[in-house]
């Protein structure tokens, strides 16, 4: 979250992107980006405050209230706004708690992928030479392969766990950061200000951290937002396949999987978490698009 808010605020001092859009459209895009960031913030609040917001314990089972349709007065005399699942657990409570898994894995994966990708991208762009070749060959190889198969192989061996999931989902995304940052650094390092700092005795580390990094920050924010949507969907997909978060911990992908066998009789078990997941993915990725239009329209072709 911390990454999205300064991003939309920064939009004011990035005239290139804003000017590229017609005045009216630019304002609309900015409003949409802020709304999208607001949605993510809302999700974070829901995830953090889940114990206070959820009407019931998400893992408490109730034989009496099994497979109850969305109702205000269930067989156990309680309201279940999104019904109950095959073990009588409240679906709404589980969807609310599921936001924790999605966002925790999503943000952690963005951090892991972003750190690895940014470091490698900066290295490749700044050092050039063989480290550039090695890093870009690795990136090509990873892009040349459906990552989900590799993820499945790794999880099969290491066993599904929270850290494994973060690592796998995070590493699935480093290439995008690395490629875009490398391109930008290649352009920046030949500029006079880099030579000037170098001439004044600034170390390479200082140049990268104090001068290159702030210049590529807006691109980083855009990629991170798009990556967040991708990471959330990948986590849900792995959990749906039984390779992610293990039951009884509620996760959106896992809930869709559990409800599959009851699609005919209790459609709400799969549909509720699935629709929330779909909406989250749509809003977050659109927010990334809007941020890109505002902050860095040159990324559009990527």
């Amino acid at each position, binding site marked *: 979250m911390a990454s999205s808010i300064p991003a939309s605020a920064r939009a004011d001092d990035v005239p290139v992107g804003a000017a590229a859009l017609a005045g009216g459209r630019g304002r609309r895009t900015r409003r949409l980006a802020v709304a999208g960031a607001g949605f993510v913030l809302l999700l974070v609040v829901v995830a953090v405050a889940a114990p206070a917001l959820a009407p019931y314990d998400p893992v408490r089972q109730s034989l009496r209230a099994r497979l109850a349709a969305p109702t205000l007065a269930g067989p156990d005399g309680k309201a279940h706004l999104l019904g109950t699942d095959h073990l009588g657990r409240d679906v709404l409570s589980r969807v609310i708690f599921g936001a924790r898994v999605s966002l925790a894995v999503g943000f952690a994966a963005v951090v892991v992928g972003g750190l690895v990708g940014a470091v490698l991208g900066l290295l490749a762009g700044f050092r050039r030479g063989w480290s550039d070749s090695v890093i870009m060959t690795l990136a090509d190889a990873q892009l040349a392969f459906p990552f989900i198969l590799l993820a499945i192989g790794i999880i099969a061996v290491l066993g599904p766990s929270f850290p494994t999931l973060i690592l796998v989902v995070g590493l699935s995304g480093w290439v995008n950061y690395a490629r875009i940052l490398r391109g930008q650094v290649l352009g920046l390092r030949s500029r006079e200000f880099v030579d000037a700092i170098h001439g004044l005795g600034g170390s390479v580390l200082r140049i990268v951290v104090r001068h290159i990094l702030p210049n590529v920050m807006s691109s980083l924010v855009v990629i991170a937002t798009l990556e967040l949507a991708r990471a959330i969907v990948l986590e849900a997909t792995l959990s749906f396949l039984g390779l992610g978060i293990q039951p009884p911990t509620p996760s959106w*992908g896992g809930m869709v999987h559990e409800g599959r066998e009851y699609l005919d009789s209790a459609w709400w078990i799969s549909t509720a978490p699935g629709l929330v997941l779909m909406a989250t993915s749509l809003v977050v990725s659109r927010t990334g698009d809007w941020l890109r239009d505002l902050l860095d329209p040159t990324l559009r072709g990527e």
Partner: protein
Amino acid sequence: MRGLLPFLGSRLLRALVALWLVSTVVFVVMRLSGDPVPLLLPPDAPRSEIFRVRAELGLDRPLIVQYAVFLGNALRGDFGRSIHFREPAVRVVAGYLPATVELGLTAFALAALVALPVGVVSAVRRNSLVDQVSMTIALIGQAAPTFFIGILFILVVSLRLGWLPTSGRGDWRNLVLPALTLGAFAMASIARLTRSAMLEVLRADFIRTARAKGVAETLVIVKHALKNAAVPIVTITGLQFGTLLGGAVVTETVFAWPGIGRLAIQSIYNRDYPVVQCTVFVSAVLFIVINLCIDVFYGLLDPRVRTS
């Protein structure tokens, strides 16, 4: 055709490097899992038996030797015997492959056949109702997780309306929903890109010239505009073909489609590592070969690509 051979050579080299990297990762991941011998033997097997099998599988040799042997075996298509099916892993995978190819090709054909006209019409009738509706659907299609699209299809089309079967492989009716699910992302991406590529070209001067000459509008769109928008469309279409392979894992699981994606997942549950490795390797080869073909096709289509 000058420059075509070096171009092909560099692409082939890159494909081989990618394949080598993937097989190395498969090897490393396999070794991370520790000693597979106890999994192969009954729990009460004597120590001498464990040592015998370990020596038989070459697991007592130095890691570098094991790596060389693994690469050699992989090149010859030898991934060991499936623990679950009790036959060579590569034969198991070969048996499941046709179903995946059938699903993948159908999904791809459906995606291209639907997306191209939709993209062209959306560009020509920009901001019309057709454009807005189809682009909204495309946005949703790009963002929605594949597995949930499949679940929604089963819920609405199979269970509520009763039009098509929910799972399994049989005649064309079994194929429609899995192919639509698998193709959804590609369809959405191709439609959006076709639209923007067409919009770009329709602004060009030569289109105005063609119209001014009195060329029929249909001819302008198809012959002048679409032909010039083809290069980016072919690129993205090719890329989408590759990602279909990854989506097959999910789609096959949702629809109980007997292909290699579902086989991979089931083999993980069965702890049938030889089959998992073989599936990953075969998919990698398929993916790389497809991409190589697309690169070659692209190089033939647009000579400028060869030099870059």
